[in-house]
């Protein structure tokens, strides 16, 4: 059992799969010789060589087009889009081509590919390098969407994503790159579509994703000291969504709080509330509450960014307030 950072877990996960399957190839900007701008892919070029680990020009449409064309003809590409904000320059390949082509062709083609990307804020990079785009991807039929919150989940979910026969958008929480966690030795592979219950309490259920998971956990600890005992669920996979676990855990406490890094409108939390409303309305003991970044572009200054993204304090306060109402 070794302690790895979230960023190291990325190379660990990709390497594991490249060893297992020679059809796994990896491409992106500055990913090979430089090991990635977040140093998430250090060592891959050295181990697997320039045929399988490839640097590209700044041509995101070409990167994803290459991944798509390769996936439909036998390879299992992993492509990196450096910052998830850059999905906007290649969104067509993602949403109109990769996501739809299996359906449009009545199943003639498959797209076993993974698009990894650094997602979210916390590094004071400003509005064009800090967005949370998970709900962009979730809104598109034909994409699976995975967001790990710990190093071991990075490895296990990356392996599951690479082995999955369908396209997976794999969003890494940039704010977590330097966090650490235990990762067992040997082959690790997890399952897509399984949420994880990280803590059980009877009063309220906090549902969090990615960078918000550790914050929700800390908020739950604080709340416990005030007598509010929370369940915390890490969603991990937006598509497929583990509604079974989620509905059960929300129904059990009767209170739902989503903790979302995304700006509010059309975030995954809204979708979850609507599922809960439709299916277990009568199990709810109070209004479901969403804790999100306000619906604004993210500011760059540290002081402002910290105010924008849900903090441990804000989460705890909001829950407390709602539980007292």
């Amino acid at each position, binding site marked *: 059992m070794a302690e790895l950072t979230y960023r190291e877990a990325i190379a660990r996960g990709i390497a594991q799969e490249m060893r297992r399957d020679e059809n796994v*190839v990896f491409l992106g900007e500055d990913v090979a010789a430089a090991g990635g701008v977040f140093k998430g892919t250090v060592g891959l070029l050295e181990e697997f060589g320039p*045929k399988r680990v*490839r640097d*590209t*020009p700044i*041509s*995101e*449409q*070409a990167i*994803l*087009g*290459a*991944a*798509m*064309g*390769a*996936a*439909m*003809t*036998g*390879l299992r*590409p992993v492509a990196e889009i450096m910052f998830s904000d850059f999905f906007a320059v290649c969104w*067509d*390949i993602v949403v*109109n*081509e990769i996501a739809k*082509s*299996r*359906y*449009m*062709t*009545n*199943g*003639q*083609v*498959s797209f*076993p590919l993974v698009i990894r990307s650094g997602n979210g804020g916390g590094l004071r990079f400003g509005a064009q390098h800090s967005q949370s785009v998970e709900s962009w991807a979730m809104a598109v*039929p*034909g994409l699976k969407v995975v967001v790990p919150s710990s190093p071991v989940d990075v490895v296990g979910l990356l392996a599951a994503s690479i082995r999955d*026969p*369908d396209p997976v958008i794999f969003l890494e929480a940039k704010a977590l790159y330097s966090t650490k966690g235990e990762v067992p030795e040997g082959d690790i592979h997890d399952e897509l*579509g399984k949420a994880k219950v990280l803590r059980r309490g009877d009063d309220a259920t906090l549902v969090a994703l990615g960078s918000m998971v550790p914050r929700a956990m800390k908020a739950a600890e604080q709340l416990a000291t005030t007598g509010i005992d929370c369940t915390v669920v890490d969603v991990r996979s937006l*598509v*497929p*969504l*583990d*509604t*079974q676990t989620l509905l059960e855990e929300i129904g059990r406490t009767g209170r739902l709080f989503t903790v979302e890094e995304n700006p509010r409108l059309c975030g995954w939390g809204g979708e979850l509330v609507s*599922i809960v409303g439709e299916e277990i309305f009568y199990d709810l003991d109070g209004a479901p509450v969403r804790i999100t970044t306000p619906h604004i572009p993210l500011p760059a200054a540290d002081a402002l960014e910290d105010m924008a993204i849900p903090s441990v304090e804000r989460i705890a306060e909001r829950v407390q307030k709602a539980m007292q109402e």
Partner: protein
Amino acid sequence: MTTARPSTKASNTAPTADTRIAMYRLLVELRYFEKRAYDLFLQNLVKGTSHLSLGQEAIAAAFGVAMRPGDHTFATYRGHAHTLARGVPMGPVLAELLGRENGLMAGKGGSMHLTSVEHGMMGSYAIIGAHLPIACGSAWSAQYRGTDEVSVAFFGDGTTNIGAFHEALNFAKIWDLPVVFVCENNLYMEYTAIKDVTAVEHPAADRAAAYGLEKIIVDGNDPDAMHEVATAALDRARAGGGPSLIEATTYRHGGHSRADPAKYRPEAEVQEWLARDPLPMYRARLIADGVAEKELVAIEEATAKAVDEATEFAKAGAAPGEDLLLKDVWSDGGWTWRN
């Protein structure tokens, strides 16, 4: 009008007699098929939009004959011809246009997305430019897997002004990918003349140098010239020589899509091009070169019959049912996004 012969050296790649007959057969098939598709549209049987290649068939026919099994075709919404040219049977294609269960994709894709992977027809793409980078991907895969498969992407003149064109061409060159980019320059986008919105005279060929590629312009209405250029580019790609960009000059006889009467084109221009219709021109050339007319008539009659049969097949198809609606979003055959 451009009638330039290929700038690549005419080697011993001139098409053989058999090849020329095969091309003629394809020309006839593509022509008869699309005329029928148009008839069915007038009868209100074709659902949605459709984009015909009438007048442009020589490009698809030449490549169809020059490509090998295992090679990959990527086409646009104007993809009927390229689909048939890879050997996909007419019946399912027509049925797809009619939105029937026995369509090539069971009606789920429609005219703009014809795909038949078993024939190497890797899809028809309806967002301008997208399939150029995708063709790079299948070429990369062929290269990686150590095969000599070539990918060919067909697209229009208007497509040369979108970003994906630029990214794909550069990418293909730096990775030496076995891909052939074929610009079918029919002088128009939808309703706007390409010359009104393009900084250079030859929208593809005048950009070749920007990607370290040779400038190739060919008469897209001349099957023999097309075949020569196609073969050279395919051979080059197969031999590890990397990508080519071909600009084939041609003209569509009708409008952009079913809704378009094409009034924006000067009558003289239309007449000039109708006089250069590849079908009668090539027929006359073959006869002049000694092919027996009755051989050609036999092809024409057989094709007419096949088109009738395809029509019957298509019309007999049922409307797709609800089982198809929710099928094949995912590789497990289903669509569910939750447990």
